[in-house]
């Protein structure tokens, strides 16, 4: 915290000088709101992102800020309490008058702040993989949409591992539900029969996995290759993987690909029995590029702990923040509408190589990586696709297949291509 305070003090002090020098149409300092939970259940994941943002702001200030202004991070704590997210977002926009916000982790917290941001015309960068089916005028989604994580992973299962029977295991909330719906529909398109898809939902923090693991094992009885698609969230993964290991299920027999298990989650586990199971992300800490090495080094220095891992949402913030900086420089102002227009088509190099491009549907185009779990808790990247543009409305559900999002030409986030009408400008929450 002391580091943060110092950074804040430094930023304000420097900003006091910079504001005189600035001739541009911006009020110095430029305020960057950070809306991540620092307490409550989501604190561990989100605190890391708060620190990432502070690091990025510090780095940018060291480079001379933006438009001659220092950046000032305004951190609030929505305490993993979803209604509080809306309250804090309003506070950031009206009391602190921030120019941009970076924040949220869970879908429900995003849905909570959406109406506030749209009402007050704010700007939010959302860094976590999510279920899609949304495109807000005021939000840029730098995490993966289902077609940037789930679909490529399933393709990998189908093509590379020859999986014929799927177990979709998830925690009972919106991301697994929607993702599994999309996958069920996608798999049936690919010729997998409905009875060959086993779906199960468990509560948050579930620990009694014996029966479910036995059910999965039993799926192989008809001679098909079975694969598990896991959207199990957070702590529950620990019990799940422990039970898998105890049941002697080898990754070569029944592979598991997880969408919510990253470097952070693996640190709560002994991974020696999980070697070979998979995860799909847009970023792995093990990516072998110079930019990534630099990023990790800077992170370790900032946080003062060499054992801390980096993860996918951190990269999302890294890309989102830098794109925003570039868009502000291009627009010459921090005005939300001007910045938004300059965001379209923004390009920035990924940490894993290649270039991320922001689309007019406010989603990024990024490559999809598939990694195998190693004994040291890291991932070995075994597959990398070409950049996939994020799809706000999935093509694999009949209701949303007809929808597109294009804020540039159609000026609509939910455009029905069949009736050629804009269903709505504001989001459905």
């Amino acid at each position: 915290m002391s580091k943060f305070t110092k950074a804040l003090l430094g930023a304000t002090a420097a900003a006091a000088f910079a504001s005189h020098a600035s001739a541009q149409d911006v009020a110095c300092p430029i305020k960057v709101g950070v809306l991540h939970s620092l307490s409550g259940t989501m604190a561990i994941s989100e605190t890391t992102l708060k620190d990432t943002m502070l690091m990025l702001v510090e780095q940018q200030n060291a480079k001379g800020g933006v438009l001659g202004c220092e950046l000032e991070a305004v951190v609030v704590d929505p305490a993993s309490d979803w209604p509080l997210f809306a309250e804090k977002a309003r506070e950031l926009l009206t009391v602190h008058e921030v120019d941009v916000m970076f924040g949220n982790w869970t879908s429900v917290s995003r849905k909570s702040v959406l109406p506030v941001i749209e009402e007050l015309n704010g700007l939010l960068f959302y860094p976590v993989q999510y279920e899609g089916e949304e495109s807000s005028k005021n939000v840029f989604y730098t995490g993966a949409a289902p077609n940037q994580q789930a679909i490529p992973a399933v393709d990998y299962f189908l093509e590379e591992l020859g999986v014929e029977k799927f177990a979709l295991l998830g925690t009972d909330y919106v991301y697994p539900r929607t993702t599994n719906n999309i996958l069920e529909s996608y798999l049936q398109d690919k010729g997998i029969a409905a009875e060959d898809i086993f779906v199960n939902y468990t509560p948050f923090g579930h620990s009694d996995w014996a029966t479910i693991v036995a059910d999965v094992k039993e799926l192989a009885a008809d001679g098909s290759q079975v694969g598990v698609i896991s959207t199990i969230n957070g702590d529950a993964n620990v019990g799940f993987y422990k039970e898998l290991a105890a049941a002697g299920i080898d990754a070569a027999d029944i592979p598991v690909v997880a969408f919510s298990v990253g470097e952070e989650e693996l640190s709560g586990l002994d991974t020696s029995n999980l070697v070979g199971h998979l995860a799909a992300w847009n970023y792995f800490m093990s990516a072998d590029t110079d930019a990534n090495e630099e990023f990790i080094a800077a992170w370790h220095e900032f946080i003062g702990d060499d054992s801390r891992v980096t993860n996918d949402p951190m990269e999302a913030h890294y890309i989102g923040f830098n794109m925003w900086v570039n868009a502000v420089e291009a627009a010459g102002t921090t005005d939300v509408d001007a910045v938004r227009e300059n965001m379209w088509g923004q390009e920035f190099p990924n940490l894993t190589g290649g270039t991320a491009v922001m689309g007019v549907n406010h989603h990024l185009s990024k490559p999809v990586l598939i990694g195998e779990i190693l004994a040291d808790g890291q991932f070995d990247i075994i597959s990398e696709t070409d950049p996939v543009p994020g799809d706000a409305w999935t093509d694999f559900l009949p209701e949303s297949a007809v929808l597109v999002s294009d804020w540039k030409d159609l000026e609509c986030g939910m455009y029905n291509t069949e009736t050629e009408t804009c269903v709505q400008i504001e989001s459905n929450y």
Partner: protein
Amino acid sequence: MTATTTNPAFGPGRRKPFVMRNPSVLVFLACLAIFTVGVTILSEGFGIGVISTSFIKTLGKTLCLCLIAVAMDVVWGYTGILSLGHFAFFGLGGYAIGMWLMYERTRLIVAESMSNAALPPTPEEISSGIATQIFGVVGASEFPPIWAFAHSLPLQLLAVVLVPGLLALVFGWLAFRSRVTGVYLSILTQAMTLALSLYLFQNDSGLRGNNGLSGLQNLPGVTASQDIVSMWFLWASAFALGAGYLLCAWVVSGKFGSVIRGIRDDEARVRFLGYSVEGYKLFVFTFTAVIAGIAGALYYPQAGIINPAEIAPIASIYLAVWVAIGGRGRLYGAVIGAAFVSLVSTYFTGGQAPSINLGFYTINWVDWWLILLGLTFVLVTLFFPKGIGGLFDLITDRRSPDRHGADLGPDQGALREKEAEE
């Protein structure tokens, strides 16, 4: 806006007017009126803009929390039933109003988007359009049966009262009938809350699972800005609190009040005196559940979102904490407790509270606030069972009589007005 303040003609007319016998009610209503007028003057929507809209919303929500705390006080402080389920009723009220808000807003959007189609939409098309919009997020596109009345505001308003009321009635009837009392009842109510929140967590429950109902702050068809709307809700909440307070004060006074306090202190004796203890308890339980439902229906449109996490058992325990810290057995104690603890909580968890640097360790309030709260609670229970309300006793020089070691009944913290005035 604050009609309550000018409503003295309440209560039985033959004797001295009710409010005259209970001056604390008048004082409270006056304070509430001054507060409401003051906030209005300082607000962004109607006044000079000193108080931000986000704080107005906090204040409005706090008033709703005070209302449910008053209900909790009636059921715990006066009747001795430590219910750990009243936040479930609060949440149900919120869900009931939320369904209409969500349905109606979505209906307007869908009707708007379909209005320029080549063919006029059929009712089925409109209905499926709304359902897709609302339930698309949980992967469904049809209305579950419980949404049958969501299109009608009057029916959903009725549900705000009926759903919590009926649940409380059925649950209370079952529990009181089999003479489940004391801590057993507390655990049972907690189990009920847990069951309800687990049920709502399921996506199949038809209330959008973990995501809950959101965007509730946008009133359908209202174009006024949130600066204005939040004031409307503040007034409504203040009115509800005033009316609820008056009603509760009236209920706990007089003979009815004596009986329920008798039940609190010694249930068996009251039963032997010929009173239908179960009937009294059931009435109080159901009555307060309805108040909780109404408080919830006012709270969640201000919060903007309701989801099952709101109903989790811990929320109901916090409710008991507020009442205990404020002082049981006195309605103003509940209000003070709820307002004080929830506002202080907001302050400490909001990240504004300055960290304390001890040199070797920095106390970060975000991390330490809950510990402080937990320990405060232990200390209050041990040393100040009367809570903040006990301070008023010092001022008014009310002392508990010396009972020479005899038992005061199970709840020492609760105010025993008649005895205290001896």
